[in-house]
C-alpha cells in the first residue's frame, strides 16, 4: 500500500476553497510552534498581527498603501507567468519605473503643469516596459533563458538607481535621494494616507481581466503557456506575443513604481528596492494568475507586513521573528496548491503494479 499523487482531469473547485483554508490553519500551527519556542503566546501574537494591520483607521490606511505596489507587481508577474515566461524581474522593472517617473518630474519642467503627472506615469510604464521587453526579446529571438536575464537585470536597475540618487541626481540637501517632485504633480490623498493611485490599480485590474479572459489575445497568451506547439500550429506568433506580454508585464511593474513614487515617496530615494517585485511573484502564484484574486492576495500580504510591525511593539519580538512568521504562513499556502491540480490516493500494492505495467 502506498500514497500516490494523481493529476486531476480538471482543477478541483472544492479544493480551490478548502486548500487555502487548511493551509492557513497549518500555517498558524507551524507558526505557533516557533512562537511557543520563543515563549510568545501564539494566539495573542496572531491577534496582534490582525490588530496591527486593521486595528485603527491609520493602520488600515497603511495596509492599503502598502498593498498598491504589491498588487501592481503581482499583476505584472501574473501576465508573464501566463506564457510560462518566468519573469522574476518585476523588482528591477519597478525600480526602472521609478527612475522613469523621476526623470520626467525632475527635468521635463518645460511641460505644462497639468501634463507632468500623466506623462511621468507613462514614462514609468515605458521604462518598466523596456526593462521587461529586453529579456522578452532575448528569449523570443535567441531563446536566452529568461529566469537568469530578468534576475540579473534587477541588480542592474538597482545599481543604476543607486548611482542616480547617491551621485548623479543627488539633492544638495536632505535625505539621500533626488530632489522632491513638484507638488502639483503629486498623486493626491483621498483618505488619510490612502491616495488616488488605488483607482488606477483597480481600473487596471478590470482592464487586465477583460484582456486576459475575454479577448482573443488573452486566449493566445494562455495557449502559448499551455502548449506552445499547438499555439504555433494555430498560427499564433509566439515571438510577437512574448515580447508584447513582457512589455506589458514590465510596464505594469514600472507603473506601480511610478504611482508609489508620485503618491508616497515623491522622489527616487533609498529603499526604492524594497522587495515589492519579489513579493509580486508570490502574489501571482497564490492568486493563480487571476487579476481579481490578486487584489485579495496582495491585501493579505500587505496586512501580513504592516501587521507584523506590531509584533515588535506589543510582543517585543525582534523583526527577524516577524520575517520567520511571514515565511511560515506563506509556505503551506504555496505547497498546498498542488492538491488543486492533483489528488492524493491510497493505492493497494497490487493495483500499483498493475498501473505500472
Amino acid at each position, binding site marked *: 500500500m502506498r500514497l500516490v499523487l494523481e493529476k486531476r482531469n480538471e482543477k478541483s473547485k472544492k479544493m480551490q476553497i478548502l486548500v487555502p483554508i487548511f493551509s492557513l490553519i497549518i500555517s498558524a500551527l507551524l507558526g505557533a510552534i516557533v512562537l511557543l519556542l520563543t515563549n510568545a503566546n501564539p494566539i495573542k501574537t496572531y491577534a496582534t498581527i490582525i490588530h496591527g494591520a486593521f486595528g485603527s483607521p*491609520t493602520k488600515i490606511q497603511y495596509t492599503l498603501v502598502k498593498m498598491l505596489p504589491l498588487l501592481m507587481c503581482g499583476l505584472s508577474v501574473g501576465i508573464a507567468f501566463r506564457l510560462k515566461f518566468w519573469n522574476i524581474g518585476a523588482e528591477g522593472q519597478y525600480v526602472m519605473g521609478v527612475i522613469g517617473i523621476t526623470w520626467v518630474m525632475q527635468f521635463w519642467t518645460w511641460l505644462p503643469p497639468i501634463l507632468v503627472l500623466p506623462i511621468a506615469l507613462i514614462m514609468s510604464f515605458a521604462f518598466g516596459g523596456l526593462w521587461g521587453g529586453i529579456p522578452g526579446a532575448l528569449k523570443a529571438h535567441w531563446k536566452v533563458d529568461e529566469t537568469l536575464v530578468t534576475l540579473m537585470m534587477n541588480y542592474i536597475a538597482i545599481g543604476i538607481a543607486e548611482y542616480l540618487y547617491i551621485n548623479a541626481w543627488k539633492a544638495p540637501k536632505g535625505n539621500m535621494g533626488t530632489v522632491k517632485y513638484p507638488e502639483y504633480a503629486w498623486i493626491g490623498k483621498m483618505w488619510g494616507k490612502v491616495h488616488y493611485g488605488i483607482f488606477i490599480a483597480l481600473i487596471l485590474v478590470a482592464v487586465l481581466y477583460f484582456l486576459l479572459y475575454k479577448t482573443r489575445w488573452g486566449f493566445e497568451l494562455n495557449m502559448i503557456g499551455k502548449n506552445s506547439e499547438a499555439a504555433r500550429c494555430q498560427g499564433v506568433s509566439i515571438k510577437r506575443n512574448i515580447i508584447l506580454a513582457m512589455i506589458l508585464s514590465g510596464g505594469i511593474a514600472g507603473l506601480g513604481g511610478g504611482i508609489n513614487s508620485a503618491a508616497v515617496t515623491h522622489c527616487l530615494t533609498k529603499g526604492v528596492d524594497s522587495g515589492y517585485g519579489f513579493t509580486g511573484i508570490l502574489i501571482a502564484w497564490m492568486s493563480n494568475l487571476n487579476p481579481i484574486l490578486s487584489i485579495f492576495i496582495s491585501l493579505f500580504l500587505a496586512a501580513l507586513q504592516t501587521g507584523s510591525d506590531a509584533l515588535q511593539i506589543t510582543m517585543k519580538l525582534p523583526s527577524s521573528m516577524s520575517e520567520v512568521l511571514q515565511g511560515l504562513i506563506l509556505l503551506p499556502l504555496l505547497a498546498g496548491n498542488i492538491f488543486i491540480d492533483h489528488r492524493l490516493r491510497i493505492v493497494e500494492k497490487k493495483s500499483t503494479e498493475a498501473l505500472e505495467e
Partner: protein
Amino acid sequence: MKKLLALLAIVSIAMATTFAQGASETSDSSADQTLKVGVIYVSAPGDFGYSYMHDQGTIAAENYFGDKIEVIRMDNVPENEECERAIENLIDAGCKIIFANSYNYQEYMLNEAKIHPDVYFEHCSGYLSNENMSNYFGRMYQMRYLSGMIAGKMSASGQIGYVGAFNTPEVVRGINAFTLGAKAVNPDATVRVVWTNTWFDPSLERQGAVSLLDAGCDVIAQHQDTTEPAKAAIERGAYAIGYNADFGKIIDSDHVLVSPMWNWGNYMIPEIQAALDGTWKSQSYWGGLDDDMIKLSPISDLVPADFQKEVMDIQTEMAADTFDVFWGKLMDNEGTVRQMDGEKMSDSDMLSMNWFVDGVIGSVN
C-alpha cells in the same frame, strides 16, 4: 464535512475573541504612568556595530530609569517611508519620546514631528530639527583622527584602505579626519576609499575590504555597521581599525589596532530625564570628549607604548580644546586649497563637507 465546518467555526470564534482581547489589552496599557520610549534602529542590535551600540545606550537608559520608562524597540526599519509607519505605530502604542538612529530617517521624522506636536523626537546623525525634534551626534571625527594616527604608524606600505558606506558629510568628514591623522604620522600615507552604498550588508562590506586588500592596503578602516571589513582584514594578516564597538574584544584579535566608539547612553539618559521632568527642549547637539559621547577603545598591544602615549596626549589636547582636527591649511585631493593657514573650520562647514583632503584616493561623487 459537517465536522470540518464545526471545527472551522470554533477556530474562527476563538480567533475573533482573542483578537478582541488583544485589541482591548493594547488600549488599556497606554493608560499607565510609565514614560514610553520608542527606539528605531536601521539594523538589528545583533550587528555588533552601530545599532548594537545604540542598543547599549538604550539598555543603559533602561537600567538607569528602571520602572519609570518602558522601551519599545523597532529594528531593521528601512530608511524610506516605512519609517513614518514605524513612528505612527510607536505613537499609537503610547510613546512620548522617540529616538531614530539613521541619517535617512530625518525627513520622515520631521513629517511626523509636525503631525504630532505632543511627542518628542530625537534624530541621530542628521541636521533637521523642529520645535519638538532634536538632532544629535558626536564629534566622532576626533576619534577618527586618533585612529588614523595609529593606522599611519602601523602601516608598512603606507597604503590604508577605508570601507565607506555612503558619501554623506558624516562619512566624508570621518575619512578626512582619519587621513589627516595618518598623514600627521606618515606624510606619504594614502587612504584608498571604496563605497558600498549600504550601512549594513555583511557580505558587501567584506567585499569592499577584500578589494582594498587586493589593491595592496595593509590596514583597513571602516564606516560600516558590522565587523565584516575588520574580519576580512585580519583573515589576510592585515591590521584593522574598528568602529562603533570595541572590535578587538568582539573579534578577539590584537590585529584590531583600535576602535573609535560611541557612548549613546550619555545622551539618551539626560534627554529621557528631561522628557520625564517636562523640561525637554529642542536642540542640535554635537557632543564630544567632554560629554564622554565618543571614546577610543583600548589600543592593541602591537602598537608601541610610547606611540600610544603620543596619541593619548593629542586626545587630552582635544578634550582641552587646544587641538583642532580641521585646522590650518587644507588642500583637497584635486589640488584646490580649501582652507588657509591659521583658519579653523566652522561646525557648519564640517557638517556639509563634500570633498576629500589631499591623501585620499577616491572621489566623493
